[in-house]
C-alpha cells in the first residue's frame, strides 16, 4: 500500500509560483484504511485492464462489457455508493501494459483491477501491480506459470490451461472414445499451452499435429493433414475466430471428425464465423452451465445488443467479487486484497474461492455442445 498522505509540507513550490496551495491531488480521501462501513465509496474505482483496440480488441471488449455490466448494475442498486470503472486499454501489448499498470498503481482511487486480459501483458503488468499492492483478478489469462511468480495480488477466476487440458483430453478419450485424434494449435500462449497438455495426456492416440497462426484465414493444408491422418476427433487450442474458419473449412472439405475446442471458443462469434459447420462442436469450459444465470444473459443482451461472449461471464464474476468487497466497506487496496483472498461465494460461472497462489479452487469443467446454432450444456467432465 502506497501511503498517499502527500507529505507536501515541504512544498518548495519550485520556481513557478508560491501560491500556498496546500490541496493535494489524487484520491487521498479514504486514507482511513479501515472498514469505514458502507456508503463511503466516493472516489472508489475498479479498473478493466486489457485490449480495447488492436488485433485482440474483440476479446477485450467482451471482457470489458462483463465488467461494465457488473459495475452499472451495482451503481443502479446502490445509489449511495457509485463505483467508477476505469479502462486501461493496453491493446494486448506488454509494452503499453507497463505504463498503464504504473499509472494504475499511482491512481489511488483504483483499488481493484479486472485483468490483465492476456498472459503476455500479465507478465509485465503483474509485478507492478504486486508492488503497488493493487489486487487483480484476471478473467482470461490462462498461462499456468503466472500464478508461480509470487505476486500476492494475482488472482485468476477461471481454470488455467493445466486444469482444462486434461478435461478436454478425458472427454475425447472417455466420452467420444476416439481412436485417433488430430491436435491443432494457433501458436498463441493460450492455444499452444492447451494443445501441448492435451497432446501429452492423450499420448498414443494422437495421430498428428499442426500449428496455424492467429490472423490466418486459409487452413487448407491443415485440413488436408487432418483428412490424411484419418482422425475421428480434432482438438483445436485457440480462439474462436480461427476455430470458426478451421471447422468450416474442414466440413467444406468433407472432414466429419468431431471438433473439440476449449473456452476460448465459447463465443457467439464462433457460430458467426462457422455457420452450420459449427453444429456438433464440443466446447470444454471451466464454467457452470448458463441456465443458472439467465438473468445475466438477459441483462447482457439488453445492454450490449449481443449475447455474452468468451470470458464475459468470468469478467462479470470478477468485478462482482470486488464490488461486494467495496459494499462491505473495503474501500482501500489493502483491505480489498484481504477480502478477495478470503472470498467465498457463488458466481455465475462457478463457486469462487481463491487458493494461496490466487487460483480458483474446485474447478469443474463442463462440456458444451453446439446445437441448432446455440451453445448448450452437455455434461460435466470428470477427470481422474
Amino acid at each position, binding site marked *: 500500500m502506497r501511503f498517499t498522505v502527500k507529505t507536501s509540507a515541504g512544498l518548495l513550490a519550485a520556481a513557478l509560483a508560491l501560491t500556498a496551495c496546500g490541496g493535494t491531488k489524487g484520491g487521498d480521501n479514504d486514507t482511513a484504511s479501515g472498514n469505514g462501513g458502507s456508503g463511503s465509496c466516493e472516489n472508489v474505482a475498479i479498473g478493466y485492464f486489457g485490449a480495447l483496440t488492436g488485433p485482440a480488441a474483440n476479446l477485450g471488449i467482451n471482457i470489458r462489457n462483463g465488467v461494465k455490466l457488473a459495475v452499472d448494475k451495482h451503481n443502479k442498486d446502490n445509489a449511495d455508493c457509485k463505483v467508477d470503472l476505469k479502462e486501461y486499454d493496453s491493446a494486448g501489448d506488454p509494452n503499453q501494459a507497463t505504463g498503464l499498470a504504473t499509472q494504475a498503481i499511482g491512481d489511488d482511487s483504483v483499488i481493484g483491477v479486472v485483468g490483465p486480459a492476456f498472459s503476455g501483458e500479465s507478465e509485465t503488468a503483474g509485478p507492478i501491480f504486486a508492488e503497488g499492492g493493487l489486487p487483480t483478478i484476471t478473467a482470461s489469462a490462462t498461462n499456468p506459470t503466472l500464478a508461480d511468480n509470487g505476486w500476492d495480488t494475482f488472482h485468476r477466476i477461471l481454470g488455467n490451461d493445466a486444469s482444462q487440458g486434461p478435461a478436454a483430453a478425458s472427454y475425447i478419450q472417455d466420452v467420444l472414445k476416439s481412436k485417433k485424434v488430430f491436435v491443432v494449435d494457433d501458436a498463441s500462449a493460450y492455444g499452444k499451452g492447451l494443445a501441448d497438455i492435451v497432446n501429452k495426456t492423450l499420448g498414443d492416440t494422437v495421430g498428428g499435429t499442426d500449428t496455424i497462426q492467429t490472423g490466418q484465414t486459409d487452413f487448407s493444408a*491443415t485440413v488436408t*493433414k487432418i483428412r490424411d491422418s484419418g482422425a475421428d476427433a480434432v482438438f483445436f487450442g485457440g480462439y474462436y475466430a480461427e476455430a470458426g474458419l478451421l471447422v468450416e473449412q474442414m466440413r467444406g472439405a468433407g472432414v466429419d471428425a468431431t471438433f473439440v475446442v476449449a473456452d476460448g471458443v465459447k463465443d457467439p462469434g464462433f457460430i458467426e464465423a462457422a455457420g452450420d459447420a459449427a453444429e456438433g462442436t464440443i466446447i470444454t469450459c471451466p464454467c457452470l452451465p448458463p441456465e443458472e444465470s439467465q438473468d445475466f444473459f438477459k441483462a447482457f443482451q439488453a445492454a450490449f445488443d449481443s449475447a455474452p461472449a468468451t470470458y464475459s461471464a468470468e469478467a462479470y464474476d470478477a468485478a462482482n467479487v470486488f464490488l461486494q468487497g467495496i459494499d462491505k466497506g473495503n474501500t482501500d487496496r489493502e483491505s480489498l486484497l484481504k477480502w478477495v483472498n478470503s472470498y467465498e461465494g457463488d458466481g455465475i460461472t462457478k463457486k469462487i474461492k481463491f487458493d494461496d497462489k490466487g487460483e480458483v479452487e474446485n474447478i469443474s469443467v463442463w462440456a458444451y455442445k453446439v446445437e441448432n446454432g446455440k451453445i448448450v450444456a452437455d455434461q460435466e467432465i470428470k477427470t481422474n
Partner: protein
Amino acid sequence: MTFLLNNFVELTVTGLVLGAVYGLVALGYTLVYGVLQLINFAHSEVWMFGSFAAVWVTVAIGAGPDSGIAVAIGVLLLALLAAMVVSGAVALLIERVAYRRLIRLDAPKLVTLISAIGASFALAEIMGLRDRLAEALGLRDELNSYVRSARDNTRFLNPLETHGVFNIGRYTVSNVDIIIIVSALVMMVALDQFIRRTHTGRGIRAVAQDSEAAALMGVNRNRIIRATFLVGGVMAGAAALLYLMRFGVTRWNAGFLLGVKAFTAAVLGGIGNVRGALLGGFVLGLAENYGSALVGSEWRDVVAFLLLVVILLFRPSGLLGESLGRARA
C-alpha cells in the same frame, strides 16, 4: 514428403484457389506501381471495404443457401457489383485524399508511402469503429445488423451451396474452387485485353512507360492515374467476393495480412506486370500449401518469404519482369 505426394492434387487445388485471390488483389498493387512507382499500401483496405459491401448485400437481402440456384446467382452478381463499386470508390477516395496532392507536388516516394499508410490505418479503424460511428449518427438501431460486433468476424451468407463437381484422385473439386480459379483467370485476361486494346489502357501503358512523354503526347496523366486506381479497386472488389465464397468471413483488419501477401505476389511475378501478378499469386499460394505440407503450417509464411528472396536473387525483377509499359499493343 510422402504426405505431400499423396495429397498433391488437393494441396494444388486449394493452393491455386488461395493464389487466385492473392493474384486479384495483387493486380491493384501492380497497376498502381506500374504507373506511379508507388506501393499503394492502402490497397488492402480497398479489398476490405469491398468484402463488407458484399456481406452487407447478403445481409440486406437475407438469402440463405436454400433459395434456389437462380436466386443464388442473382444475389452473387449483386454482391459482386456492390463489392466492385465500393472498392472502386474507396480506391478513388484514397487517390484523392492520400495521393493527389503529393503527386502534384512531385513529393518523395516515401512520403507518399506514409500518406498511404495513414489512409490504411484510418480506413481499417473506420470499419472497426462502425458501431460507434453509427451511434454517433444516431443510426445504431437502424443499422444494427450491419454494424454489430464491429471488431469481430462478420459472416457472408453464401447463397451458393458448396458441392463437389468431380474428382481428381482422392480430392473432390468443388463448384466454388472452379468458380474462383476460372473467374480469376477470366478477370486477368479481361484486364490484360483492357490494357492492350482500349484507349484508356493505352494511356496507362504510355504513362507507365514514360509519363513525361505521354503527357507531351496529350495523355491526361491525372485521368490515367484515376483510371488506374479505379481498375485496381474493381479487381479488389471481385477478389473480395471470391474470398468470401471460399472463407466465408471478413473483419476490419483482415486486409492487412492479405495485403502483405498480395504485394508479395505482385513482386514475385514482377511488379508492374499484370500477368505476373496472377502468376505470382498462384506461385505464392502453391508455395504456402506445399511448404505447410513439408515443414508444418507454422512455417508457411517463412517458406513464402524465403521463396520470395530466392526468386528475387535469381530473377531480380520477378518471374515475368516489370512490363506494364512494355506490353505489346
